[in-house]
């Protein structure tokens, strides 16, 4: 009786409960609204005409983009082509070398190194047991190394530290690759092969016996027609089933493969219009195969989550590439084709103008105050009876600015020889010292004063940046040179040198192509050769027609640059205003190909 009463009550309350339930359901966040659809039709292909380190990914935008997609997350496989056993062994040797170079506290890693060395004696990795040992020891090494890196900060071991981290990463990635590839090899069966094995083989065996493989193709007519039809029908059916199974296997293998996220890319406005986007994966190893996956990600807006809360990310199922793609190296790096074209134009123009100048045509060049001041500075030093100091920067002979500095030195030394002034050239590199000696000696010879040449005035100080500066400061303060020339590559020392020269009242001429140092030289020196003026110095000072021709050739280069800048700005502006897909593609081509 009591139960009946309760049931009646519940029946009366049912509509109320249902309405309340619906209300609660509405108040709860609707998860289905936040479901992010994956991108589709992901394809990966090797980028043509490159150095073999890029792969282009293309995919169609996910359903609901842009309202339900904040960006796309690109992953690339860590488990790439199998690493050869020898390579793995070499990598361990590299690791060993790293340990040798690094100032590692012995107590922390001694055991680990011993274990790795012991494993190095293993002559190959033929089974999973060896591989497991490597994995275990290397992971142990990694943990120890990370702990050590956190505990210390050795500046003198920086290079070795970076190297060891890289080698550990390489090994860490290589081992699961090896394992995954073994699985990959095992599952490498086509749908046809499966169908053949499942359906056709048993029937053929039944009809022709155990030696059916020998000549079944010739004896196919012996099979009754109805059996043959049935066989073909069964085989087609089995093939369909096998295809589905292969697809499932590949997907499963893809899920097993280790991936790392490499970039979050947001589609541009024009890509949204196009409904498709592409991304170029760079810095790949051409010896390896890569697999990719892309997911669509939605990130909650800040206003939705409230202050202080962390916005939640919703990531879609991935779109994956089924086959591995290997970047290939081409014979010509097509990405650099626009640059090669431009180099040809500039170099061609320089060579043509050199020929024009050689034919006797007078070429006019504007006055460069800094170079006109060379004679003035040398004359002043002569009058005051003080030396001239010439510094060719702090880089070696493989730096073009050092070479440009030496060409100016040639002229300054010749003038100094003519005026009988003393020129001192301290250098921070031994090779620069040797080259500077040759230059100054030849200049003295040309000036007809070989006897006045003193090679001891061109000397090596030190390779160390601030050691060199300290020496120069001391020398300048003691000897008080009347003129100082700074021609070459300079870094933080530029202002220290120029201010010291200024404080002793020397006339100072500087020339560099380091944009960050130019303001310091401009502030502290009397004359500064800015960028291209510095490179023009040799031609300007020598006045040789072929050299002047090269300056005119540079002007053609400037015109080409000017035209390209105007075209680029116009196309980018139009693309931005109109949102045209073609114009945006053109902008991307200019940015990604021509300006690279």
């Amino acid at each position, binding site marked *: 009786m009591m139960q009946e009463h309760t049931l009646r009550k519940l029946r009366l309350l049912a509509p109320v409960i249902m309405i309340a339930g619906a209300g609660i359901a509405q108040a709860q966040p609707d998860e289905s609204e936040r479901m992010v659809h994956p991108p589709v039709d992901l394809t990966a292909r090797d980028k043509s005409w*490159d150095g*073999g380190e890029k792969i282009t990914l293309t995919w169609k935008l996910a359903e609901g983009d842009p309202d339900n997609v904040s960006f796309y997350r690109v992953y690339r496989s860590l488990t790439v082509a199998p690493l050869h056993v020898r390579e793995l062994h070499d990598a361990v040797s590299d690791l060993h070398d790293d340990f*040798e170079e690094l*100032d590692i506290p012995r107590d922390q890693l001694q055991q680990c*190194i011993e274990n790795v060395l012991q494993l190095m004696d293993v002559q190959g990795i033929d089974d999973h047991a060896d591989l497991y040992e490597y994995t275990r020891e290397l992971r142990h090494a990694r943990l120890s190394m990370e702990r050590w890196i956190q505990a210390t900060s050795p500046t003198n*071991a920086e290079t070795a530290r970076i190297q060891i981290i890289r080698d550990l990463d390489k090994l860490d990635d290589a081992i699961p690759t090896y394992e995954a590839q073994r699985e990959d090899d095992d599952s490498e069966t086509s749908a046809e092969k499966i169908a053949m094995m499942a359906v056709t083989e048993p029937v053929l065996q039944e009809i022709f016996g155990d030696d059916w493989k020998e000549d079944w193709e010739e004896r196919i007519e012996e099979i009754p027609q109805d059996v043959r039809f049935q066989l073909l029908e069964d085989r087609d059916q089995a093939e369909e089933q096998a295809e589905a199974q292969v697809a499932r296997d590949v997907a499963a293998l893809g899920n097993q493969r280790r991936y790392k996220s490499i970039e979050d890319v947001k589609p541009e406005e024009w890509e949204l219009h196009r409904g498709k986007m592409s991304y170029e994966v760079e810095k790949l190893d051409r010896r390896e195969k890569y697999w990719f996956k892309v997911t669509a990600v939605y990130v909650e807006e800040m206003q939705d989550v409230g202050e202080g809360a962390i916005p939640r990310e919703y990531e879609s199922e991935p779109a994956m590439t089924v086959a591995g793609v290997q970047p290939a*190296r*081409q*014979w010509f*790096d097509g990405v*650099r084709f626009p640059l090669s074209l431009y180099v040809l134009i500039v*170099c061609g123009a*320089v060579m043509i103008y*050199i020929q024009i100048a050689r034919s006797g045509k007078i070429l006019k060049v504007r006055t460069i105050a800094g170079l006109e001041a060379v004679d003035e500075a040398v004359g002043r030093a002569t009058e005051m009876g003080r030396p001239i100091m010439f510094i060719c920067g702090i880089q070696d002979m*493989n730096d*073009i600015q050092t*070479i440009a500095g*030496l*060409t100016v030195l040639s002229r300054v030394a010749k003038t100094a020889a003519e005026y009988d002034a003393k020129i001192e050239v301290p250098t921070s*590199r*031994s*090779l620069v*010292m*040797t*080259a500077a000696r*040759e*230059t100054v*000696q*030849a*200049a003295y*010879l040309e000036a007809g004063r070989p006897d006045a040449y003193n090679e001891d005035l061109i*000397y*090596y100080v*030190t*390779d*160390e*940046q601030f*050691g060199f500066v300290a020496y120069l400061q*001391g020398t300048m303060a*003691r000897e008080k040179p009347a003129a100082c020339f700074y021609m070459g590559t300079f870094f*933080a020392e530029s*202002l*220290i040198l120029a*201010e010291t020269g200024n404080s002793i009242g020397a006339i100072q001429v500087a020339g560099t192509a380091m*944009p960050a140092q130019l303001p310091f030289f*401009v*502030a*502290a020196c009397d004359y500064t050769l*800015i*960028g*291209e003026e*510095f*490179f*023009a110095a*040799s031609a300007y000072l*020598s006045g040789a027609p072929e050299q002047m021709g*090269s300056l005119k050739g*540079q002007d053609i*280069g*400037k015109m080409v640059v000017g035209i390209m800048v105007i075209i680029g700005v116009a196309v980018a502006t139009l693309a931005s205003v109109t949102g045209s897909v073609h114009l945006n593609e053109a902008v991307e081509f200019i940015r990604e190909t021509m300006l690279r």
Partner: protein
Amino acid sequence: MKRTIPLFLTAIGGFVLIIAYYIPHTQGWGEVAAIWFDILAAIAFLLGGGNLMKIHLKKISDHKAGWAYSVITIIAFLATLTAGLGKVFSPPSMQYPDMAWSGSYREIGSAFWWLFEYAFKPLTATMFSMLAFYVASAAFRAFRAKNFEAILLLGTAFIILLGRTAAANWVTGWLPESWAGLKLENVTVTIMQVFNTAGNRAIMIGIALGVAATSLKVLLGVDRSYLGGGKG
């Protein structure tokens, strides 16, 4: 001949590097050329060390101004060389703990490491820290309002200095959002990103062209002044 061979080597080296840049299959050539340069520079290092000794010993013997510094230089040079080459107090490597010289010369606790950590590094830091004072004195001189350009420079520098400090917020923080572009921190960003970048890029383009033309002159042997000028 003395100049023809260096010119020939320069041209070969230069063109090999250019080819290696455009043809991926020849990238190794460029690396080989770079290794050759390193070998050459390493040999030249001996030349530099010998020259250092010669110059400073001569200074000491002639009692030239500042000869005492030359004494310090030679002592420091020899002490560091001995500490490095002799691996003084350097513990043996972990692989060969029984061999006294098997450790790295830079091992923590070695004499070379000690010199580097407690002599070289502090001295370098001292030199670098002087830069702050030089920046102040150079700025004081550069920003004197002598003419229109100098006034423009002074005004810009003033805005940048203010914009990069907390003072920017005190001065223009009260401006409404619709005038946000005039806030000093935003003006600073505009100056740096638009005017400064434009000027910098113009200089960079000039430099790139200068480098290309100079390189070409050197490779073709048109400019030989770095070899002492004259005809080959």
